[in-house]
Structures are given as C-alpha cells and as structure tokens.
C-alpha cells in the first residue's frame, strides 16, 4: 500500500480548491460571528475583554444617566439623576438589567419591571464593567440559590425569616404591598430564585440591603425556599381571592354573599307567571 504523498495529493487538487476553501472559511467565520456576536449594532467587534465590551455597552445604554464612568449624575437642582455605581457590584447589574428594570424607560418614583433589553452575555459584560468600578456583591453562584435540596426544616426557618424581614413590605403571601409616594414592593410570584437572592443582596432602589454577613447565604436560600413553597402550595380552602387579605375578602362577601342572597330574595318575592285561562272548574 502506498502512502498518499503530498505530491500525489497536490496533483489531485482542483485549480479552484483554494478559492473554495477561502470562500468556505469566509462563510464559516461570518456565520460563527453572526451567531455568537452581540446583537447590538454598536458593539465593537474588535473588543477583547468582557469588561471592555461591558464598558462599550455601558457608554451607549447607561452613561446618559449614570455618567460616562458610572460616577452618577446630579442635576442642577441637586437631585440625583442616576446614582453612582461604584460599589453596587455585579449582582446589582445582573438583577436590574436582568429583570428589565434597567435601562429605565422614563424617570419616575420607581423603576418598573419590563421587557429585558440585553441578552445574558451582554448583562454579564455590563456586570463585569460595573464590578470593576468598585468592590461590591458578586453574582451569586447557582448553589447559593438552589433550593432543590431544601429540607422542611429549612423551609420552616426560611418562613420565620420571611415573616420578620419581608412580609411588612411584600405581604404574607408575597403578593406585594404599597410604599409611600407611589412606590411599591412588587409581588414575588413567578420571580426566579436568582432574582430574589440578588434583590436581598443588593437592595434595589428603596428595598433595604440584606448583606451576606447579617443574613447568611444559607438563610437567604431558606427564605427563597419558603417563598417557592408557599407559591406552589395547594389552595386548601378554595380560591385565594388575590391573597390580599380582608379587603378583597370583604369585597367578595358583599358581591357574592349579599348580592347572591338578595338576588334569591328578589326571585322569591317576585310575581309568578299568570295564566290567561280562567280558574278551573
């Protein structure tokens, strides 16, 4: 058996082989680039590090309120336009941008949750950049908020923490509550474990911070386990009526209860059909 030598394989090459290889390479590179590169038209294709990419995204989407170096912008009147981001940490960015709260669509008393603008890679890049501005809480490891191994005792403990620290704003069923001046503590229904963890860790907007040294990561995980357990708990007594407490219960008592009984009363005392025939003999 003869080994195929380079001279032999060279003779088998078509004159167009090189051109085809070049075209294929171009297509491949272009295709891979189109797939993996960020969607933003402004991201620099030549940037190397995540942080630099994050900075680029920051300059486009965040600097108008937070300043070109995340130093914050104070208005002429002395009020805060966008707060300084040094020290907020990657976790804060992951939360705010990951839940769509940032970038803020318009100024107001509170940033509402809305459609997420950046994809996960962009968020990580932004987070890396903001983390570089000053030391702050890092994006938590998945194990920090993984509640799949939580025991019942953990859930019970988490419930105790929840009742002490969280229900005052978010209500007993995590349905949310009102804050002064048009602000609110949102409902936690359907919120991911990671978002809950990061919110506790970073204290978004008016929410207080629950640092890891005071409310330990395991305790935070227990709180999340409790929230998830009451969210998925069966509705033992029937419809929850919004889990808002006595206000909605009273509303239903009046509408269904009094309304229903009065409707029956109207029926009971209403006149019945009359016959056109005479009285039977």
């Amino acid at each position, binding site marked *: 058996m003869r080994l195929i030598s380079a001279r032999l394989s060279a003779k088998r090459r078509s004159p167009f082989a090189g051109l085809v290889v070049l075209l294929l390479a171009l297509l491949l590179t272009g295709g891979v680039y189109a797939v993996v590169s960020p969607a933003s038209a402004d991201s620099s294709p030549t940037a190397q590090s995540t942080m630099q990419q994050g900075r680029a995204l920051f300059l486009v989407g965040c600097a108008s309120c937070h300043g070109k170096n995340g130093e914050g912008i104070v208005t002429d009147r002395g009020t805060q336009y966008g707060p300084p981001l040094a020290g907020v940490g990657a976790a804060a960015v992951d939360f705010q941008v990951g839940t769509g709260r940032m970038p803020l669509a318009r100024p107001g008393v509170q940033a509402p949750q809305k459609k997420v603008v950046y994809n996960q890679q962009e968020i990580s890049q932004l987070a890396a950049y903001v983390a570089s501005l000053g030391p702050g809480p890092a994006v938590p490891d998945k194990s920090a908020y993984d509640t799949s191994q939580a025991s*019942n*005792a953990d*859930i*019970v403990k988490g*419930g*105790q923490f929840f*009742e*002490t620290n969280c*229900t*005052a*704003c*978010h*209500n*007993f*069923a995590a*349905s*949310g*509550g*009102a*804050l*002064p*001046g*048009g602000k*609110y*503590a949102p409902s936690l229904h359907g919120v991911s474990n990671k978002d809950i963890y990061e919110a506790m860790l970073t204290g978004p907007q008016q929410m207080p911070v629950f640092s890891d040294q005071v409310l330990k990561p395991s305790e935070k995980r227990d709180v999340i386990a*409790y929230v998830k*357990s*009451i969210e998925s*708990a069966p*509705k*033992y*007594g*029937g*419809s*929850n*009526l919004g*889990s*808002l*407490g*006595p*206000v*909605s*219960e*009273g*509303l*239903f*008592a*009046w509408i*269904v*209860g*009094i309304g*229903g*009984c*009065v409707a*029956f*009363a*109207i029926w*009971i*005392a*209403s006149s019945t059909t009359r016959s056109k025939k005479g009285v039977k003999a």
Partner: protein
Amino acid sequence: MMSTVSSNGSKPAKTPRKNPVAGVATWADDRLGLASAAKKQVRKVFPDHWSFMLGEIALWSFVILLLTGTFLTLWFKPSMGEVVYNGSYDQLRGVSMSEAYESTLHLSFDVRGGLLMRQMHHWAAMLFVGAMFVHMMRVFMTGAFRKPREVNWMIGGLLLMLGILEGFAGYSLPDDLLSGTGLRIAQGLMQAIPVVGTYISFFAFGGEFPGDVIISRLYTVHILLIPGILLALIGAHMLLLVYQKHTQWPGPGRTNDNVVGYPMMPVYAAKAGGFFFIVFGVTALMGGLMSLNPVWRFGPYNPSQVTAGSQPDWYMGVAEGLLRIMPGWESHIFGFTISWNILVPGVIMPGVIYTVFFVYPFIEAWITGDKREHHLLQRPRNAPTRTAFLAGMMTLYGLLWLAGGNDIIAKQFHLNLNYITYFMRAAVFIGPVIAFLIARRWCIALQRADRDRLLHGYETGIIMRSPEGTYAEKHLPISTEQAFTLTSRDRDALVAPPSDADENGVANRKVKMMRLRSKLSSYWYGTTIQKPTRAELEEAHEHSAHELAKHEDGHQHLTSGEYNGDYALDGQAADGHQFDGRHAIEGDELRKH
C-alpha cells in the same frame, strides 16, 4: 269523629284510627294551652316583598353561625399556652405557637370538614353584619322606624353593634399574625383613653400586651356573653315584629289599618324556611370555593412581625379608615397626654355617628312633629331629606371604607398612597354634602314625575302631529290601582312657628328651641312635593277627559275606536291601534299594564 258503623256490612266493625298528631297536640294543649296562641299566629299574614327579606338574611346567618360555631368549639382550644406545632401543615412544623393557633391549624388541616366549617362560620359572620346593614338601610329609607317601631330600631342598633364586636372577637381567637395586629391596635386604642386608658388596657389583657389571658377572655365573650345577649335581643326584635305586624308597601287594598299578604302557614313558612336553606347553601358554597382568613399563611402572632395590607374585617373598615386619615394631633396638658389622633377616629367619631343613628327616630319625630302611627312604608323619594341624609352617610361610610384600604388601592391601581390619604381627608367632608344635595334634588324630581303621572297620565310614546305642525305626546291616564298607590301617602304638615307669648302674655320659655324646630321642619319638608288634592286631580282629569271627548261639532282630539265617553282604556296600554283611526280594537290582544 266516630264513624258510623254499618250493621249490615260484610266487613267487621273497626274502631277509627286516632290521628297521632291530634293525640300529641291534645296532650300538649292539656298542659300548655297553646291553641289560643296558635289560632291567631298560624294564619298570620306577612306581606311579600324582597326588601322585607333582608333582615331574614341576618337571622338565618345567625343560625348558621350558631351551628358552625358549635362545631368549631369542639376542637378549638382558647389558650395562649405555648406549644410546638407537629401537625400536617409543613411550613410551620417545629414552630412555637399558642394552643389557640395550633388548634385552628388542626381544625383546618387534620379535621375533615374543619376548614369548611371555619370558612362557613367566617363567611356567615360577614353576611350577618352585611345583612344587618342592608336591612337597616331599607328600614331607614322606607321610614319603617317611625312610631310604633322606634324600640325595634334601637334593638336593631344594639344588634348591629354587638354583631360587629362579636365578629372582631371571633376572628381574633385564632391568635394569628393578622388578628393579633388588630388586637394590638385595639389595645393602643384602649390605652389612649384619658384617665382610665391604661387601667382598662391592663385589666382587659391581664397586664401588658399581649399577656396570656386575652384569647380565653375573648372566647368567653364570643361564645357565651354576646351570643346570649344577641339571642335575647333577636327574640325581642322578632316578638315586636309579630306583635306590631310587619309594615307593607302602599298599594291597592293596603291601608294603614290592615296587612295584606300571605299566611304564615303554609306560604310564608315555606318561603322563609326555603330562604334559610338558600342562605345556608350560599354560605356553604362560599365556604367551599372561596378561601377566607387563611391563618396558616399569616403565621402565629408575634409582636415584632407584621404583614403589608393589615386590615381588619370589612365591618371595622370605617374605624380603620378614620384612623388612617386622621392627622397626628396630640395635646400635652399638665403632664398628661390627650391623643386626639386616636380618640377622634377610634372613640368620638364612631360614637357620634352611632348615637345619631340610634336616636334617629326621635330626632325625626321631633323635627316633623309627626306623632301618628305608621304601618305603610314611604317610598324613599317621598322623604327627600331623610333619603338624602342616608345618601350622605353612605357616602361617608364608603369613603372611610376606601380609606381603610388605601394601601391595597394604591398597590392595585398604581396610585400614590399619600395622595389617597390627602384626598380622603377632604372628601369625607365634601363628599357627603354633595351626595346629600344630589340625592335630595333627585328625590324631588322623582316626586314631580309621580305628580305628573297622577295629573296628566303616563306618556304613551305616541307622538301626534297637529295640522299646524306642532308635535305633542299623548298621555293616557294611569290605572286606578297605580293612582291609589301613588297617593297612598301622608300629607306632610309643617310644624308651625311658635308665638313669643301665649294669649295671656306669658312669655314662651322654650321659644328658641321651638323656633329651631319649626325652621328644621320647614327645611325638612319645605321642598317635598305633596300629592295632589282631590280638586287638582279633578281639574287635571277634566282636562284629559276633554282630550278624549267628542265635541259638539264632532271633532275629537284623540280617536280611539270604541271610545264613547267611558274609560274602556282604563288599565290598557296604548300600542297605537286606537289612535290611527283606521283599526278596530275589538278582539285585539291589548297588553295589560
């Protein structure tokens, strides 16, 4: 009684079977003499209208409360002793809690039907108070509280107050976070009472809040003291109703001296008994399908925990609203504190509103000088000032209710919590006044419409065009029954202004009070439209008779087939046939009113 026995019959003689019911009845009557009472009451007449059944909702709710409540007492432990939970609800296992809370969890999760009974009990309590309110409003609007029913009105007022207190005691029994917060607020209210506040608070709670006796004391109040008083008052309320007979709406055949309706046996018993089952059924459906007071989600009471959206049950919502909108006023005098921010909304305002309603029959009787007995109801429009007063009070009540839920409203509708409070502070003064003015004018306008119907008949919807080109709508007279119903009301008389001195020149010492009374009476009745006098009616009918009459020269304003001067159209609807002059109406299936 004895059947005739045929001596020639083929069958042997048989003694007739004694009717077993007759046997029992005779035995009872021999000892209790019930027949004299029974003969009057068994066929007692009750008038039939849906608005008379609102008090029944309350009555049947009370029965349901007694039944479901007794069930709950078989498991509930009214103790604040600490235990560690070891039942079925996972999220609280191992947590320390009072026995009261633990037994409530046990009822909810480990007793079949326990949660259903708990929820039915609580829904029935809400229905009880709600029905009393609606019933009270109906009685108020129709003037059924007037002589001779003032005492019954006051009994009803007591029932309402006791019902509210009973509900508060009841939902505080499970010692959960939400109701414990409510108890804390009640304690703060007690403590703020001048001079004796701290003593009342310490005596009620056996020391500092929360102590370890309040739940068992509330239990005694809730299952023994208040139900006992409620039963007695309900008995008195019913007794008065039976003795004085129910009021009735005016209508043909109904006067102030009779009562028209159906007899107790069998119709009213069937309708009232059936309604009991319906109210019971509605309560059971609510208890099965709608979750209420889910104490396991609140957790046991802990004085350093609280939930957003802490409100009492709806019937305390007015006090809650008052507490929220009141500004933080407090006075310090000679080293003592007077907490106006708590006393006004917690004690003074509710006390004033309640007292005004409690003695209202006497206030109105004094203003109007009306000392007659009334058994015919007034349509709300025929008492414009009274109805408007109720409209104002309902507006005040509703606004305070909303104020009590201001944080829920702020969250659900994305409003500013503080602005809601500011708005309410103004609205509770302005709103009732506006409602009063609007309701009064509305009633008077409705009275005018009634008067027009009496004098000019009803609008037929038939528009006639005269040869000159003018359009006019034809009216037909209303039936005699309708006219009688509309005029079956008292003619209002103003209280005459007093003279400064009587005929001998002795000065009238009460002249200021009497002048005030006269002024109030003229404000009360001043703009009410009275029913037309006989003369006015005659004049109006002559005018309309003219419309239908055939004149000497043969012209007729209104043609109507067979019309020949008598009111064959009395009670008939006009559907156009009679007016086009081209259709015969005999054999026509004219619709009746």
